[in-house]
């Protein structure tokens, strides 16, 4: 029997499974997106993922974390946000905590992106404690209009 169609070369047989895993993590209250650590209550850092027409946007709430303490990397469709959250008090001074809710320590979160992106075009900014990563979608992930002759 003749082959009617072939999967494209970059077809990922596990894409569907990953989506399912994400949904299961969400439902089971684990927060989803990999090995997030709890700092100051809840998986840290909290993040949002948006899917726009030409780009994906990932936002992280990291108040008090310095630019130089954040380490962002991407491998294929996997974005990793790593960093260190330092305690608020002046380190060289002896201080007495009355309340310590914010927490501190190393953090890491893995985001499996819903689309393929162009690694060269990624930009990130840190404003008012919110890290915004903009990831332009790759041509292959964008819809293309086909003219019928």
């Amino acid at each position, binding site marked *: 029997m003749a082959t009617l169609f072939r999967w494209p070369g970059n077809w990922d047989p596990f894409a569907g499974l990953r989506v399912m895993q994400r949904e299961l993590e969400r439902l089971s209250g684990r927060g989803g997106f990999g090995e997030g650590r709890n700092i100051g209550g809840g998986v840290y850092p*909290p993040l949002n993922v948006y899917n726009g027409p030409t780009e994906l946007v990932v936002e992280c*709430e990291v108040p008090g974390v310095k630019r130089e303490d954040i380490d962002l990397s991407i491998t294929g469709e996997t974005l990793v946000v790593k960093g260190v959250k330092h305690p608020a008090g002046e380190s060289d001074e002896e201080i007495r905590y009355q309340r310590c809710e914010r927490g501190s320590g190393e953090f890491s979160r893995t985001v499996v992106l819903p689309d393929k992106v162009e690694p060269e075009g990624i930009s990130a900014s840190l404003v008012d404690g919110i890290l915004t990563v903009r990831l332009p979608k790759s041509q292959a992930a964008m819809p293309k209009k086909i003219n019928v002759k």
Partner: protein
Amino acid sequence: MDIYERTDGATVLVAEVPGAKSESLDIRVDKGVLTITADGRRESLGDQYARTYTGFMGGQFFRAFALSDEVDRDNIQASLSDGLLTVTLPRAEAAQTRKIEISDG
């Protein structure tokens, strides 16, 4: 929020207010109660952006504390950087430790 006491006796409040600009902050002392309000709401990216995953929503922040008489209410200082609000409550002069001299009877 973290609250700690420095060696000079001042109490420092550290609050996370991600997304809040300094003009949205309102810190006041009224009848011995310190209230802190901040607005972390931001403009949405637009209708063309679908939410794939939501871990946080920008919102308004509010917290209130009753101050003790040991706080110097006229010299409270606040600063905002990287989404972190720091409020310093110095210790009042009257609350400092004083040595009392004994006069000859």
